[in-house]
Every structure is written in structure tokens, then in C-alpha cells.
């Protein structure tokens, strides 16, 4: 019954997240509410890591497979993609490099400066 209990706890947080998403006016997905609440509960000690660990690790391990239907759905919007293939390629390549360089450089600069002080 251990894994049953673990899965139950995670579903409970998903349900609370869903309710919050319905009740609050922010454009925040139910999953993010659940994630933040679970993290706070872990920090506060309300939920202990062993109470959810195995079920959470299992879900994280199978997570990529859960995206297959969403990726396959791309076949239904083939035309939209082909029409915009050049801007899409340029945007994806450039932003990926920009995000990496900005994040990495800022983090490195702040960590090193912190050490020198």
C-alpha cells in the first residue's frame, strides 16, 4: 500500500492545484500551483520526502513518454509550420544561445563576485 499512498498524495496536490487554477484569476497552470504547494509542504515538513519519493521518481522517469501524443499532434499543423519555417528556425536557434549565454554568464559573475567579497 506504500506506493498507493504516495500516488494518492501526489494526486491530492494535483487536485488542489486544479481547484486553485479555477478559483484564482492568474494564468498559472494547475500543475505549477501543485508543484509550488508540494515544495512548500516539503520545506515546512508537512510532507516528508519518503512519503512521496518513489511515486514521484517513477512519474519523473516516465514523463517524456507522456508528451508523445502532444508531439504527434504536430502532424495536424504541418502547413502552419512549413509556411513559417525560416522565422521558426532563426528564433529557436538564436533564443537558445541567448538564454544559455545570459544565464550562464550572470550566474558565474555573481557566484565569483560573492566569493571575492
Amino acid at each position, binding site marked *: 500500500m506504500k506506493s498507493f499512498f504516495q500516488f494518492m498524495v*501526489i*494526486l491530492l*496536490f*494535483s487536485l488542489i492545484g486544479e481547484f486553485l487554477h479555477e478559483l484564482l484569476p*492568474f*494564468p*498559472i*497552470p*494547475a*500543475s*505549477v500551483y*501543485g*508543484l*509550488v504547494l*508540494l515544495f512548500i509542504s*516539503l520545506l515546512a515538513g508537512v510532507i516528508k*520526502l519518503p512519503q*512521496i*519519493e518513489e511515486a514521484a*521518481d517513477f*512519474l*519523473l522517469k*516516465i*514523463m517524456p*513518454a507522456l*508528451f*508523445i*501524443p*502532444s*508531439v*504527434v*499532434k*504536430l*502532424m*495536424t*499543423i504541418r502547413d502552419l509550420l512549413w509556411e*513559417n519555417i*525560416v*522565422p*521558426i528556425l*532563426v*528564433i*529557436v536557434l*538564436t*533564443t*537558445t*544561445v*541567448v*538564454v*544559455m*549565454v*545570459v*544565464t*550562464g*554568464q*550572470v*550566474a558565474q559573475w*555573481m*557566484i565569483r563576485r*560573492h566569493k571575492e567579497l
Partner: protein
Amino acid sequence: MNEMFINSVYFGCALSLICYWIGVQTAKRFPVTICNPLLIASILVIVVLAAGSISFETYHQSAEKLTWLLTPATVSLAVPMYREVQLLRKNLAAILVSLFSGCVAGMMTVWGIGRLFGVSEELYLSLLPKSITTAIAMGVSEEIGGVPTVTVGMVVFTGLLGAIIVKTVCRLFRITHPIAVGLACGNAAHAIGTSKALEIGEVEGAMSSLAIVAAGIFTVVLAPLMGMLY
């Protein structure tokens, strides 16, 4: 024959899992980043559907049950985050500021290049959340008026590309600190980048998983504002 597929409750789900298993085995045999299980599985499913003239709707009516688990899986990201809470606390300022700057810079770039090419507002809104993990990106895209399907495609594409180029980018721009490399990886290329970061090292992997969550939350807050700018 087709009726059998149309009425099936398990066909789409089973096909997805079988293709994913083949993807995992292939990735094990050929450990190069381009051999991504999700990419291989999705291509296989599309090939099978096309070869059997099976419509996407037929596949999707049972395959969509997989999507049901996405919310509990995303909630579970709290666990790796909590495991690295010490490292998180110690470098909190550097982590938050760098991830935030990265998110803003990324979205500004989408805005700038989008403007340059004059892409439609719908496409712009779909591209905004492309650097974050799929579950959150889909939610954000839907909330701000993008097309979730386009977003998912761009998220996967971004992740694959990020994982392939991260080592070269870090070398070219002299990003050497393990925490910085991990944050850069997760902030730009979410879960797919994180699997690459785990290969580079333990600290890199941990920081990358943290970045998935933080970048997701920043984007949730920033994307609606950036959406109004266009």
C-alpha cells in the same frame, strides 16, 4: 480493420508506449544526443499512422489518456528541487537573478526576431514559452492565446537543439562554473537539457532541474506581459 482501431480503448496508448520503448533502447545503443527517446517515439508513431492510413483522431482518443498523468508528473518536480535545497539556499541570489535575466533575454529575442520577420501574433504567442518544460509551456501557451500544439513542437525542438549545442556554447563563452553550466542548460533546454546536464556532472544536473522549475514559474509570470507587447 479500421473500425477495430477506431473502437479501441488501448491502441493509441499501447502504440505510444511501444514506440517509446524502442526509442529508449535505440538511445541506449547509440548514446548521441540526437537519439532522443521522445523524438524517436514520436517519429515512429507518425510513420505507423501514415503507413496504416490511421487518422490522428483515432490515435488520439486513446493516446490522450497519457496526458492525464502530466499534471502529477509536473507536481513531482518538487522532489528533485527539494533534494537540492542546500545548494539552492547557498546560491539563491545568483540562481534567481541569472535565471530571471535569461528568461527576459530569451523572450525579448523572440519578440525582436518575431517583429523582424513579421510573424503572426498567434505564432509569436506560441513561441514565447518555448524554453520551459512542456507541461508548463502548454498551460502558458493556452492561457495567453497561443497554439499549444505549436508550443509543444517548439519546446521539444528547443530542448534537443539546446542539449546538442550546450557544450560548444559554454566553451565559446567561457562558462565553466558547474552551477552556471547547469543553470544555463536547464533555463534554455528544460528536461531534455537536464538529461544532458546530468551527463556532464551531478551539480550541473541538480542545478538544471532547479532551473526547469524556476524558469517555468518566471515564464508563467512574464509571458502574459510579453504577450501584450506584440
